[in-house]
């Protein structure tokens, strides 16, 4: 079970309305992208990171775990901007530090916005939101089913992998590859078999081809949304004024 999913389901703002969270995250993201990085990106980070950690009470360890990979990519990405390789050898690029700092600030701001949304809002809420925005029902259902069964398939694969390892199936590269091939070949019929049983289960509950479920959606709090919009307006004006 992924830590992102766990945080998304168990954080304090789980039951805040999707609109409030999406407007906050995507609005701030847009500001960070459009406006000059200094100081807008910094303000965005200063708002979004505390919102995630203190507001939604997402554990710092989870946040850092999720941020590590993108930050690693960012570090690699800024290197070619900071440095220049020419006939004289490796040296600092002219105007490199300023450019790299701007890029890094913008990327970190965007990351803080996306992590806020990912860590406070379960994937199913996001898909539900897209559906209300006009995503066709079939695609939404498919996405939800894939999301649900991804975990089951993952668990099965992990169990099979452990069983193979216990029987020395991972000793040596050749055997490791062979075991992996067998695992993938076994997963497919298992997935099909499960799909067949799922159909029996759904039919027993009167399934007629459409998956209707009742979602309890959090009511939109107008004051919270107003606060979000005010925050964004303040960030935007600070960004324009101070740059």
């Amino acid at each position, binding site marked *: *079970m992924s830590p992102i*999913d*766990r945080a998304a*389901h168990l954080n304090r703002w*789980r*039951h805040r309305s999707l609109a409030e969270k999406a407007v906050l995250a995507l609005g701030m993201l847009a500001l960070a992208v459009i406006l000059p990085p200094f100081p807008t990106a910094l303000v965005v980070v200063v708002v979004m990171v505390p919102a995630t950690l203190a507001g939604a009470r997402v554990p710092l360890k989870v946040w850092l775990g999720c941020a590590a990979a993108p930050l690693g990519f960012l570090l690699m990405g800024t290197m070619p901007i900071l440095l220049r390789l020419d006939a004289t050898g490796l040296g600092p690029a002219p105007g490199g530090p300023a450019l790299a700092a701007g890029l890094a600030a913008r990327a970190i701001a965007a990351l803080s916005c996306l992590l806020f949304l990912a860590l406070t809002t*379960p994937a*199913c*809420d996001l898909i*539900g939101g897209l559906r209300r925005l006009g995503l066709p029902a079939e695609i939404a259902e498919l996405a*939800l*089913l894939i*999301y*649900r069964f991804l*975990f*089951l398939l993952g668990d099965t694969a992990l169990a099979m992998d452990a069983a193979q390892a216990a029987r020395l199936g991972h000793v040596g590269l050749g055997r490791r590859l062979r075991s992996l091939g067998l695992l993938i070949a076994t997963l497919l019929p298992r997935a099909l078999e*499960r799909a067949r*049983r*799922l159909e*029996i*289960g*759904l*039919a*027993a*509950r*009167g*399934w*007629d081809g459409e*998956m*209707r*479920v*009742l*979602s*309890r959606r959090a009511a939109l709090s107008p004051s919270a949304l107003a606060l979000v919009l005010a925050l964004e307006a303040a960030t935007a004006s600070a960004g324009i004024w101070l740059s």
Partner: protein
Amino acid sequence: MTLLEARALSYAYPGGITALDGLDLTIARGRRLAILGPNGAGKTTLLLHLNGTLNPSAGRVLLDGTATGHSRAALAAWRRRVGLVLQDADDQLFAASVFEDVSFGPLNLGLSDAQATERIDQALAALGIADLAERPPHLLSFGQKKRVAIAGAVAMRPEILLLDEPTAGLDHHGALHLLAALERLAAEGTTLVFTSHDVDLAYGFADEIALFDQGRVLAQGPAATILADAALLKAARLAPPLALSIGLKARAAGLLTESDPLPRGKAEILALVDRLIAGISSSSSGQSAATRDHSREIV
């Protein structure tokens, strides 16, 4: 009164493996019927016939004495009255949260959102999982998933609930929780039919037993009668329940009279043991007092 009935039901899986072989079964309203048989006897196949998932190659399933059909409309009417819970809850839970998953059946019945919500809340409360309503299925324990799967069927308020191995794989605590929930459903009038290979569970919980092996019901009747028949149990590759064996032994030894109820579970066995201990200590203390009197006489 017979609610659901299978008559001379036969079914062979593609490939020729016979799963049901002229099976007869009657399910009376308000009963708790255990279909007891060893692994691989075809119990699941039987349940899949009882809600119309599988179509028998011969024989009929009767609902209220009327033959059932396999048309779309007939199946819908049938499944409205006969609910099914699969053995592996992961085969049944598909939605993003417990509440949404349980809402699936009621909405398929065509209920309004308000009516559906009322049923969902009641089903969750009946299974003791109201606090899990907003959880996604993959964050639940095995026992919790099982109860959610049952709630999904219960929310449709079926007259008969078919459960495939409801306690399989559950720990002691989980099994107790589940049985308590089933007890509440039975008390509200739901007819329960469950498959099991656990004779002790069946004896403790069911009032009627259908002994099943090799695609046939070998015998059907009151739990105590069927399970006391050692030859019959042996034919179904099962052993008598412990509580019943102890009870019959106690009765044969005169510790229980013919009118005393036989123990059905652990609590009653322990009560019997207590009586036995009390009897031993009182008789031994009585004996030592007599010995003392006797010795005094000698003196």
